[in-house]
């Protein structure tokens, strides 16, 4: 049923007059009521086999999205610019910068000295003429034939908060549903014992920026679609065990009673948050049983653990999160988001970048390999990206072994793998300075449209009516980039 029809069915004549009688005029009453009810109930409850939101056959069943918070330097990792090595400390030509706005952190700099990457690159075999990757990512490089490396990403934001918000919700201003929430809304759950959208955060080594819970929020979508964050230290989910003296049956009885009361209140007020509350309490009850099995790595064989590296046994590390991501994927969770913090290297980039890469390189490559050999990669989209790129010129003092880089939205690199993404290619080109895109630019909206397409949605049709308007993840933009699809 369309949410709007549900809304109308929920409105009865008696309710209308009741609300009018409470001291408001009839017109005002209905207006007030309308504003009370902006959020219709979840639509996917209709016919037994309805999956009304898919538009075409999906290529992928789920997404593992690794967001590198802080924006990794494309020029030191993926965007190979050997020509720059002969332009050390030269000024960035105005013809390249073309009046680009800069952040307050470097706009006052007297000059913009070119800082070539001091890291060696290696060309790895892929399904085209090879992919150049930095020496900081040897394990990722060894996965090159599975990777679709896009070097021509661009974004609108130049600061982290709006940058991540744009990447996660398709809009720089907060308030819209996150990508994971849209996926949860559209795909529904494939494992009733676990949340549809799970988030895990790893603390970085370098300069870290704040992460707000709204990056995985559900915006105006029903609240049960928001990401469920697993804690990175101690128990991944708190209060999993019932308190002493409370049996599982007690808990069930308590839930049933509270659910009944909430249901009555929901019928009276039509507040969809109550239904979300009921759904979440049920989910919490089921997670009491499903999460311990999920987070217990004892059934992993030694060689698999070794693949992810020595950190895998330390909860909260990127390695542990990657293994957990694979276990979640295996258990049918639709959208798994890993945040790795600490990529914001305004200064001391070489040292900090190396530490960051050491933390992620082996686990992320292991995740790809592990998914592939278990037959899961074909139906799981894996994506690795920051919120923008970093400048080719140095922020602060440039020396031959140290430099920093400022935010750069005009071009940056990301990679995807699996789930119908074209494997083993490098897509898009930037100029010699890794400053402007010279071929095949891909916007964040294009990326969203393409990923939604792989999940079985037409990005122009996956919409939700809110405050009188149909909203989409891609707003009014975005094109499906068929060049990126296998």
């Amino acid at each position, binding site marked *: 049923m369309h949410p709007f029809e549900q809304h109308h069915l929920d409105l009865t004549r008696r309710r209308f007059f009741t609300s009018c009688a409470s001291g408001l005029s009839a017109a005002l009453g209905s207006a007030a009521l309308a504003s009370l009810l902006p959020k219709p109930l979840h639509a996917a409850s209709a016919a*037994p*086999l309805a*999956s*009304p939101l*898919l*538009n*075409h*056959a999906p290529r992928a069943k789920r997404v593992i999205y690794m967001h590198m918070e802080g924006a990794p330097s494309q020029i030191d990792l993926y965007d190979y610019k*050997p*020509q720059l*090595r*002969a*332009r*050390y*400390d*030269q000024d960035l*030509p105005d*013809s*390249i910068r073309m009046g680009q706005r800069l952040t307050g952190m470097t706009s006052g700099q007297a000059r913009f000295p070119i800082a070539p990457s*001091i890291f*060696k*690159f*290696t*060309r*790895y*075999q*892929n399904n085209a003429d*090879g992919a150049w990757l930095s020496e900081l990512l040897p394990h990722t490089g*060894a996965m*090159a034939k599975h990777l679709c490396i896009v070097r021509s990403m661009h974004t609108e934001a130049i600061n982290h908060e709006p940058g991540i918000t744009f990447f996660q919700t398709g809009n720089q201003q907060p308030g819209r549903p996150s990508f994971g929430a849209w996926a949860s809304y559209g795909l*529904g759950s*494939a*494992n*009733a*014992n676990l949340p549809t959208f799970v988030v895990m955060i790893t603390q970085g080594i370098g300069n870290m920026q704040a992460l707000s819970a709204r990056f995985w929020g559900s915006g105006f979508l029903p609240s049960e679609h928001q990401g469920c964050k697993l804690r990175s230290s101690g128990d991944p989910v708190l209060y999993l065990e019932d308190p002493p003296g409370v049996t599982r049956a007690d808990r069930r009885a308590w839930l049933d009673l509270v659910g009944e009361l909430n249901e009555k209140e929901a019928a009276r007020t039509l507040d969809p948050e109550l239904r979300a509350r009921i759904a979440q309490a049920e989910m919490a009850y089921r997670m009491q049983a499903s999460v311990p099995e999920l987070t217990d790595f004892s059934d992993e*064989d030694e060689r698999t653990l070794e693949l992810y590296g020595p950190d895998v046994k330390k909860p909260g590390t990127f390695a542990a999160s990657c293994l957990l991501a694979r276990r979640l994927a*295996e*258990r*049918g969770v639709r959208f798994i988001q890993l945040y790795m913090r600490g990529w914001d290297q305004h200064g001391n980039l070489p040292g900090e970048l190396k530490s960051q890469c050491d933390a992620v390189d082996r686990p992320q490559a292991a995740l790809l*390999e592990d998914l*592939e*050999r*278990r*037959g899961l990669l*074909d139906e799981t989209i894996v994506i690795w990206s920051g919120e923008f790129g970093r400048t080719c010129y140095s922020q602060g003092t440039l020396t*031959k072994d140290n430099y920093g880089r400022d935010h750069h939205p005009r071009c940056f690199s990301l990679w995807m793998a699996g789930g119908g993404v074209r494997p*083993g290619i490098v897509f898009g080109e930037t*100029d*010699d*300075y890794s400053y402007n*895109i*010279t*071929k*095949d*630019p891909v916007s964040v909206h*294009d990326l969203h449209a393409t990923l939604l397409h792989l999940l*079985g949605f037409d990005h122009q049709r996956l919409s939700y009516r809110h405050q009188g308007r149909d909203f989409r993840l891609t707003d009014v933009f975005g*094109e499906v980039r*068929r*060049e990126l699809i296998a």
Partner: protein
Amino acid sequence: MSIDSSDSAPAAALQAWVEFFGRLHPLLLHAPIGLLVAIALLRAWQFARRRRADASDAAATSVIGLERAIGMLCWATAFAALLTAGAGLVLAREDAYVTSTTLDRHRLLGIAIAVGVLIVALTHGRPRLQVVHHAVLIASLAATAFGGHLGAELSHGAGFLTEPFRERVRMADPPTALEVSTDGPARVYEERIAPILAGYCIDCHGPTKRKGSLALHGPAEIELGGISGDVLSRANPAASELLRRVHVPIDDDECMPPAGKPRPNAAELDELRRWIEAGAPLPATELEPIAPQVELPVQRASVVEPPADAVAKLRAKLLHVQRRTPDSPLLWIDAAAIAPTLRDDQALEWLGPLAPHIADLSLARSGVGDALAPLLARMERLERLDLSATRIGPVTLRALGGLPELRELVLTRTALVTCTVEDFAGMPALANLRVWNSGLQRSVIEALQAARPNLRIDDGTDLRSQPLETEEALALTSDAPLSTAGAEAPAAVPINTICPVSGAPIKPGFTREHEGRLIGFCCNQCPLAFDADPGSFAAKLP
């Protein structure tokens, strides 16, 4: 459960010893039963004496002695029960056992008895816990009776206890003629052969136990054969394994039924022989007899909506059911939410009604095994099957041979050590086979690849890319000419200002080189259209 091929020798030896321990279960279990009965008898005797209430010194001494003896017996029982339960848990993991309610209950009761007698031992000699001691003793006795009964049903077949009350059909005379051709094969099989198989075979090769992965309780199961291959030979009926096994001398290891079990009489053996020699006709099984590499005609099940009640039932059991594509009647079913507890009997019951509608099925990480083979063989529209980390064996593989549309088969983390190339016969559409950590022999993988060059076999190796070249030592200089020529966004300016495909103004970044000229476009789609047929746009270029 998975067997690792690379370091298999010590692992296999350990595995053998573990299995040996498991098979001691039927021997060990008698100890706790006897001991428990002994304790109960002593307690009853003690109770009867105490009622006579003569508290002489001699009696008191003997009471103390008796109490000590009971204490010793309690500990002996606890030890024996723990060993028995341990062995039972190991034995139940063997592939021969179909995961079922009976097995689950027997396992649960076994653990309960072990815990119970441990409590009996711990509470012995503590006057304040006397009530607990006696109550648990009685409960353990009751549990032993019922648990033992379930165990007997597992090893001797359902209804073992009450069997004497039922009529046992034994054939007196060889029937005069076997009307195979005229009366239809169904009658002969159902009226004469099935009762013989039910009487002598299906206790060990049936719905609750599948020794050697063989089941003989239905035509589909018979067609599938067991771990030693087909039991019926269509080409040479007289050489059928079924016939051979019942005729080898009784002291032979291969003799079936084994020594000590009831054997078919001469009339019944004769009946079996005639049936098999007549080609062993079976009622239609929906199962094509398995022949290597047959080109099966693509027969599609009629495209109808799946039954809503069966879908609702699966959902109520927390299996994921979804249409494969928005309008398709074909289904994707995933048991991820309940995999660790899913059993053969449940899977058979729940998935049965939907078999012709399933296109994508994942039973990964569940407890299902070869008992599902006949069901899987009915899934004519199956395209993707994930049996990762299940207990399946060669019988299941052979059941998949006739599936015309099966494209992808995931067999990772299984124990397919004994599988051969022939087990992969059929499966005409198979394009992707994943066998990482499946125990499959390297020689089998190689032979399969040689036989089917277009099949992509992923065994978890060769997933990595090789480095092709690495930069030399880096030298950072400022030598490059300061001119920005060649460095600026595209060095050349497109020759056009209007997109030749759409007619809209061109945008930077969307370009193609064509015949040495740089052509600009308005969006990312137009260059694709241009690439398809550059000639047709020539007129629109300046």
